[in-house]
Each structure stands twice: as structure tokens, then as C-alpha cells.
């Protein structure tokens, strides 16, 4: 649906050039929810604004639904933008228009008749749960309600793509969840392709299929959300994941000082990560029985991404060194990721 090829963007100013994007390539399939996460200043907004040509790329191409966005003439671009809606961190509603008239705006500029507009706006307000607020002005709404208006307005033109620029960053966690649920809902209902940028990993974890990590104008890591979550390859990705799932050892463990070589006690500390089905199986019990080792769980957490459970356990394995190795090999065969942390002194 969206293909971004070797996109660069350089801002020129008196103070010097800023390369906001340094060759970004991405592909977003139809009906997908694609997340781009990055720190402030990484180039997220620049990237998403290049998709609808609010920002002209310096080089590279953006293709949306087969159209080369950069090559469209004025009128064609306006038409193309009607199929690519956008929602914003600060909602950007028209303060002088009621909720109803805000949602009606994109239809007005498409030249729809009054009756046709009403026919489309009302169900949308129903969908976002604001039909009783149709006559309110934005200043009379909460942040979450404003974003719902933003979403209804974005959907009015029946777009194929929805771009979300930090759509939940100005909202509290509870409201964020409800807006994300709404986005997920419309993604399914309208087979809408969604690209969202954020600096909050919770957003990615909650609704995205795929995620790209952007850093300093480059995509440094990309993949399925589960894959990136369970097996991050870059430090940036690890840090973001750390914001929702603790990757660090619990403090009491880092304090005791683990030894990298075997010590007398023979207790080995391992981190076991598991994804999906294996989470439900009695693997630890199996290892204890089969290999004559003792396993005690020191610390653990379990989470789920898009209905797939995954988690980490930090466990102490003790026994004969051969037995321990066999047990670890067994974990590997059961699709657990095993990471040896060290020996307990």
C-alpha cells in the first residue's frame, strides 16, 4: 500500500543544513498497522509528513496505492490527499466549528451535498461515541474526545490510509488505551492501512503489526512487533522495550555480583525468554524430572503482544554441571531463548 524508497530530507537554513532523513526505505502492506518509533528529533514527523507530501522529500520516492506521490500535479495531489487522512498529537480541530462541522469539513471541500454530508457524519460520530456531542465546540471537549473527533474527521473521506503523528502522546494512559482500541477497531472494520509514529513503546505493543525503529534519520531496526520485542538487535530498540518490559536484572541480583566462571555453589542464573505456545507448557517441570537439576524461579514477567503471550523468567539452575548443560539444551529444543547470566557466588 505504501512504499517508501530511499527517502532523504534535508532542511536548509541559515544556521546550516539538517539532514532529517538519510535514506529511509519502508514497505507497509494493505490493512496493516505499521509503527515507527524513535526519540525526539529522530525524524519521525518528517517521515510521516513526506507520505502525503506535506513535506517535500529532497530525494527518493513515496508510492501510495500505486501513485507516485512526488510526481502528482497540484490537483491530483489534493485528490490523493483525500484518500490519505491524518490525525495529530494536538488534534488540530477547527475551534470555530462544532464537532459535527469539523467532521463535515473534508466532505464540504469535496463538494458533497448537505444531506449527503449529514448521512455520513452521523454514523461516524456514532462510531467514535460522540453523537451526543455533535453540537459541542472543541473547547468543550476533553483531549480524548477531541482525538475521537479527529479520527471521525479523518475517516469522513473514506481514506485508504491513516497517518497518525503522535496521536496519543498528549493523552493519559487510560485514554491512550481507548484511542488505540478505536484505531484497531477501524483498522479491522475498514481494512484501513495505518502508519503511526510514536515515542511510546506501549503504542507499538498495543496495536502494531510491524515496527521500525528510527534513529538519527535512519531506520536501524525493523520487523514484526513480536520479533523485535523478543529479540531486539539494537541498543535503541532495547531501550524502548525496556520502557514497557523490564529487561534489566532486578536490583538485588545485580548487587550480588555474578561470576562468569563456575563457582563452588554450582548455581547458574539464566534468563529464559519464551514466546507463544511454549509459554503454556510445563517445560521447567520437565527439565527437573529429566535432568536431575533443581530450578527455582527468581523473577519473571509475562506479557502479550497481539494475543501472543511472551515472557521472561530469571531462574537459578543447580545441579551437576553436565546435567545443567543438558537442561539448557533441552530448553533450546523447546524454543526457549536461553541466556546465561552468570554463576551465583
Amino acid at each position, binding site marked *: 500500500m505504501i512504499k517508501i524508497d530511499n527517502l532523504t530530507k534535508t532542511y536548509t537554513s541559515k544556521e546550516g543544513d539538517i539532514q532529517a532523513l538519510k535514506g529511509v526505505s519502508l514497505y507497509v502492506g494493505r490493512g496493516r498497522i505499521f509503527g515507527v518509533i524513535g526519540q525526539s528529533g529522530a525524524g519521525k514527523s518528517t517521515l510521516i509528513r513526506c507520505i*502525503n507530501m*506535506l513535506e517535500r522529500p529532497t530525494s527518493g520516492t513515496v508510492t501510495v496505492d500505486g501513485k507516485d506521490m512526488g510526481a502528482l500535479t497540484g490537483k491530483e*495531489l*489534493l*485528490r*490523493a*490527499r*483525500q484518500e*490519505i*487522512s*491524518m490525525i*495529530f498529537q*494536538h488534534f*488540530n*480541530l*477547527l*475551534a*470555530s*466549528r462544532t464537532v459535527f462541522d469539523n467532521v463535515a*469539513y*473534508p466532505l*464540504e*471541500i*469535496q463538494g458533497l451535498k448537505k444531506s449527503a454530508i449529514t448521512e455520513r457524519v452521523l454514523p461516524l460520530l456514532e462510531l467514535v461515541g460522540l453523537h451526543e456531542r455533535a453540537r459541542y*465546540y*472543541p*473547547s*468543550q471537549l476533553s483531549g480524548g474526545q477531541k482525538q475521537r473527533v479527529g479520527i471521525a*474527521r479523518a475517516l469522513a*473521506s473514506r481514506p485508504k490510509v491513516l*497517518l497518525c503523528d503522535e496521536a496519543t502522546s498528549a493523552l493519559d494512559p487510560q485514554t491512550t488505551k481507548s484511542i488505540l482500541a478505536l484505531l484497531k477497531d477501524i483498522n479491522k472494520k475498514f481494512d484501513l492501512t495505518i502508519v503511526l509514529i510514536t515515542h511510546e513503546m506501549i503504542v507499538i505493543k498495543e496495536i502494531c503489526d510491524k515496527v521500525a525503529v528510527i534513529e538519527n534519520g535512519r531506520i536501524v531496526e525493523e520487523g514484526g512487533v513480536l520479533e523485535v520485542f523478543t529479540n531486539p538487535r539494537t541498543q535503541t530498540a532495547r531501550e524502548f522495550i525496556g520502557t514497557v518490559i523490564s529487561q534489566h536484572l532486578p536490583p538485588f541480583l545485580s548487587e550480588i555480583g555474578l561470576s562468569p566462571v563456575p563457582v563452588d555453589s554450582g548455581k547458574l542464573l539464566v534468563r529464559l525468554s519464551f514466546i507463544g505456545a511454549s509459554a503454556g507448557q510445563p517445560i521447567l517441570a520437565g527439565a527437573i524430572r529429566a535432568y536431575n537439576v533443581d530450578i527455582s524461579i527468581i523473577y519473571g514477567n509475562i506479557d502479550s503482544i497481539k494475543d501472543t503471550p511472551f515472557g521472561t523468567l530469571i531462574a537459578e539452575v543447580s545441579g551437576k554441571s553436565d546435567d545443567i548443560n543438558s537442561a539448557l539444551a533441552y530448553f533450546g529444543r523447546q524454543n526457549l531463548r536461553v541466556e546465561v547470566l552468570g554463576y551465583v557466588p
Partner: protein
Amino acid sequence: MSPEIIRLLWQSCLETFYMVTVSSLVSFALGMPLGVLLTITGKGHIKENPKVNQGVGAVINAIRSTPFIILMVAIVPFTRWVVGSSIGTTAAIVPLTVSATPFVARIVESSLKEVPHGVVEAALSMGSTPLEVIYKVLLPEALSGIILGLTLTVVSLIGYSAMAGVIGGGGLGDLAIRYGYQRFEEKVMIATVVILIFIVQLVQSSGDFLSRKTDKSRL
């Protein structure tokens, strides 16, 4: 006060009303598009164009920095060309309009610049044309502020119209000077001042009311 004076007061009121109304309306009509032009050609706006922006801006600043009384005399040939005469109430409307138009332009510009850029951006992202951005976004969003600015313009024009006596424009200010100052008729002086205060109050409070009515950002 003699009936003669009352008649003069009434006539002056009508002259002031005539001068202020016509020059207000014409300067709104000319100043608004200029204000829009200044805004959209400004940096980072929908039709950024430094040359046009600075060119129009320079002309506007030149007019605004010329004292009204000098402007009035300086543009006499222009006034004659427009209304066929350089003295009289109608003739006074021309310099009043010329001096108010740049004022309106700047006031409209500063109101339009108050519209958050994100709102303009949202409109663009929905496929709005520049004209739609102007008529459906910028002007309605800035309406409340523009009304306040136009009110200020009218109030200033009432003040400036008092100087119209110089070119035989008549009006309340002229009456106050001719009778009150030159002939020491204090009562006339006081009456005109009271009437002027009353008119200014009326204009200001109507403007405030309308501005509040159209401001939906604080409900």
C-alpha cells in the same frame, strides 16, 4: 443651546457618521485581502513568497509611518482624481481610507497568524486548496480577533475624522474646534466630546460583544 447649535451638532454627527462609515467599509474591503496576502506569503505559510511579502509590507509601513495630517495634504492630487474634489466631507474619506487600509491589513495579518499552524496543516492534509484554507479555515478561525481589530480601526477613524476639518471635511471634531476652540463656546465643545465618547463606547462595546459571540475557543 440654541436650535441653531443643535442643528449644527446633528449635521456634524451625520458628517462624522458618513466619513467613518464609508472609510471603514472601504478600508476593510481593501485591507482584508492585503492582510490575507501578507499572511499567506509569510515564512512557512501556504504561499510563502518573500518578495511579495516584503514589497507589500514596505508600502504598508511607509503609509503607516506618515502622520495623518501630512498624508491628508500629500495625497491631495490622488483625492481629486478619486472623488473629483480635494475639499469637503467626501474628499476627507479618501485620506481616511488610505491611512486605515494598511492598519486593517496589519491587524488582519496578526489575527490570521494566531491561527495555529497545525490547523492549517490539517486542512491541507485533507486536500484543501489555498482558497479553502483562507475562507474555511483562516478567516473563520481568526474572526473573533479580526472583529476586535476592526473595532479598533473604527475607533481610530472616529479620532482621525476630527482632523478632516483641515480639508473642509466637517464632522464633530471640526465643529468642536471651530466653535469650542476658536469661538470659546464651551458648551459646544463639551457636547461634541460627550457625543464622541458615547459613539466610541457604543462602537467598542458592540465590537467586544460580537467578538465574544464569535469566539468559540473559550466556552
